[in-house]
């Protein structure tokens, strides 16, 4: 037995429409409705347009289309029930595309051409309404995991962030109950809605999630021929709501680091302008590899620049990874980790289990997962000198990370296994990386132009 170095973080509550406060998202949305809806959703009905992608090599279930239409009807009910949205269901004239093998490049090129034709036809039919208040639901067979050349990425490449779209697979169709609520939530967020905010705000003003990856280009039968660096940032406010996501492909690490620095600077400056304050508390969350010394030096220069503009910035840099083989087993929870349990390895490093057993009132533990959940390792990589001691700063960082696991807006589960800062920056990096790969391999045009600002989370 040894001295206490662990603790439990309190479960954050969410604030929904009408000031309703609740932990459970489904219950909160049912009773209070969404926290905020875009004006156009309130004023006009949202068009829901079905598109069915069939593959001739599979024996599609006879009732695939019927199932899809049934799903669509129920989804429209969910929109009304949870998001108070008025919906126009375009199921009378669903679009259909037939392809043979869904992984063959030539077939995917044909699919891309078909999707583009449909996109243009939809534009002609619905005009500006398409981008403003329509969502395309793509019903397709589930693609093999991790396969970049697949109908999913081709559809994202063609529709991208121009039209809110959602792929619904045969797997989701086989079990409506969970997928309906999740799909309706994701679509609402893609249309620019804010389903909930944190009831108790984070003790920081601006949180920036940074994701980085490498895109390797190969030629048939040869090794790696070239590579690019892909970076992304997700900016989150104190209320836990994502305000923007950006992605950038750069040819050098230095260019990428400089782009990340300029985005941090811009996010802080915009906060100062909008809030009228000159003191900003900033937190930067890195996933993947730890930031190098050069990257940290670059960030410090950015902070210095801001100081020269008379903006006082208190900052901390956290590195968050789930690539650890440690588990915190709580005796009182059948040796499962408890949600929010943390263990301080030192003043700079800690283990945290966001997912785990939770207590629901006076009843027994509630398990929001199957299997043993992964543990996160959170490291305090750097912090401004004006900060308090390392351990309290790290605990504050752990709370911030834990709270942001409750802000995922594409699933009705209580929380997820990582903060949205790292998840969304990585998700958008992965999606944009895959789209770059698809575009290069298939020689396709793509609606996603790199360096774009994505104000709506189209990548969810």
């Amino acid at each position, binding site marked *: 037995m040894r001295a206490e170095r662990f603790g439990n973080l*309190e479960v954050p509550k969410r604030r929904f429409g009408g000031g309703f406060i609740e932990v459970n998202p489904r219950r909160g949305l049912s009773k209070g409705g969404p926290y905020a809806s875009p004006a156009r959703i309130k004023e006009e009905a949202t068009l829901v347009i079905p598109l069915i992608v069939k593959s001739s*090599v599979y024996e599609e279930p006879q009732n695939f289309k019927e199932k899809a239409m049934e799903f669509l009807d129920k989804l429209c009910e969910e929109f009304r029930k949870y998001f108070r949205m008025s919906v126009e269901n375009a199921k009378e004239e669903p679009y259909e595309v037939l392809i043979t093998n869904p992984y063959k490049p030539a077939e995917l090129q044909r699919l891309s051409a078909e999707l583009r034709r449909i996109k243009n036809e939809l534009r002609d039919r619905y005009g500006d309404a398409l981008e403003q208040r329509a969502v395309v639901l793509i019903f397709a067979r589930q693609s093999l995991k991790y396969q970049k050349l697949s109908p999913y990425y081709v559809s994202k490449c063609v529709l991208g962030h121009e039209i809110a779209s959602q792929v619904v697979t045969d797997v989701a169709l086989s079990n409506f109950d969970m997928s309906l609520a999740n799909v309706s939530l994701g679509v609402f967020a893609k249309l620019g809605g804010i389903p909930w905010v944190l009831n108790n705000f984070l003790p920081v003003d601006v949180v920036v999630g940074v994701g980085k990856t490498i895109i390797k280009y190969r030629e048939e039968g040869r090794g790696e021929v070239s590579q690019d660096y892909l970076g992304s940032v997700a900016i989150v406010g104190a209320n836990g709501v994502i305000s923007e996501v950006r992605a950038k492909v750069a040819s050098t690490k230095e260019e990428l680091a400089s782009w990340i620095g300029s985005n941090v600077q811009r996010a802080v400056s915009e906060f100062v302008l909008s809030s009228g304050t000159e003191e900003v508390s900033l937190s930067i969350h890195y996933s993947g590899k730890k930031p190098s010394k050069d990257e940290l030096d670059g960030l410090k220069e950015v902070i210095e620049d801001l100081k020269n503009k008379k903006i006082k910035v208190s900052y901390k840099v956290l590195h968050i990874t789930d690539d650890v083989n440690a588990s915190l087993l709580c005796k009182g929870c059948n040796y499962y980790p408890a949600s929010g349990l943390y263990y301080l390895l030192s003043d700079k490093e800690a283990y945290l289990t966001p997912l785990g057993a939770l207590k629901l009132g006076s009843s027994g533990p509630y398990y929001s997962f199957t299997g*043993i959940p992964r543990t996160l390792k959170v490291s305090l990589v750097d912090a401004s000198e004006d900060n308090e001691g390392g351990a309290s700063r790290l605990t504050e960082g752990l709370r911030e990370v834990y709270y942001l696991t409750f802000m995922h807006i594409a699933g009705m589960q209580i929380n997820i296994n990582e903060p949205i800062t790292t998840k969304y920056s990585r998700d958008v990096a992965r999606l944009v990386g895959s789209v770059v790969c698809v575009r290069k391999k298939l020689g396709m045009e793509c609606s996603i132009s790199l360096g774009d600002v994505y104000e709506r989370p189209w990548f969810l």
Partner: protein
Amino acid sequence: MIERANVILNCFALKTSDANISTVKALVSDESYRLHVKHFLQDPEVSITYKVKRLPKGLFEIHVASIDVSLDEVENSIEKVKDHIMDKERSSLELLKAKELIERALFKKLITKGWSCEYRHGYYTCYREKLGENEIASTKAPWLFTFYREYRYKTMVMTDGLYLFVEPRLRVEGTDFSSLLKYLGDGVLDEVISKGVSCIAYRESEKRYRRAVAVRLINSTKGRRVEVIYFDGEEAQVELEKVKLIGNVLWLKGFVTGLFGQEAYETYAQLQRRYSFSLGTKESKYTMGSEFKEESKKFIKNVRDSNVLPLRLSDVVVDVEDKPLEVDGNASREVW
């Protein structure tokens, strides 16, 4: 509300007979290290373990310790690569800086005792025991998947010492396409592959297996091949022996059900759920946590039974505790 909490970590405290481990410290160039010294250090037949540190100007500093033999024998072994070493001397490492020495010594010793081991991304993974053999034997295709209990380990420095973290996992290996062809025949295999089968295929340019989808069986001048599309879109024709079903039964539901029936799929899928700590079932939430703990302990027991532990690194005896680390205290928590 204040709750009393007890937490157990899946790690075991390391105990040593001394706080320092004697080593031979050597200096080598980048090129010598990559081309010669690294292969020598990694050879499981040579009873040494090492820690390497990159220095400026393209140099590597290596600390080498012996496993269960004297340090003099290390000196003799190193003679084999002496032409590639710029400088060497006797030195020592503090225990807290010697974690790589212990990880690698365990790795080498486990291999020599019949375990299969791999090293990737900073973690060592070892497996030996097959799981569910009786259930698998009762299926129509007992050759389709093999299940192993594997352990992923790493040493970590915490506030007051060095710990060995052990994570029990399930390893599922799918059969290769040469076996599939043997059991299914040309026509059937050709038809199922045309729909796309999730697999791992050897990529010659990287010298490793990569995720892919098998799309066609072909006859080439070099013999039968599987046409695959790798995860990143590269197409290739790969020998049947170098393409294996992906090690995840749940991802191959249609394939297994279509060829061998629902019963075979259910048997394999249930085994995967039962033994995989990342999946579990609704019922398993009452047992899986404690099974996870027991399996971590079992690894230490198996390693001790295989005479891998205790280790002798140079002149220091290294052992681990049998019980995982337990911490307790008061934890504040809002109950809602």
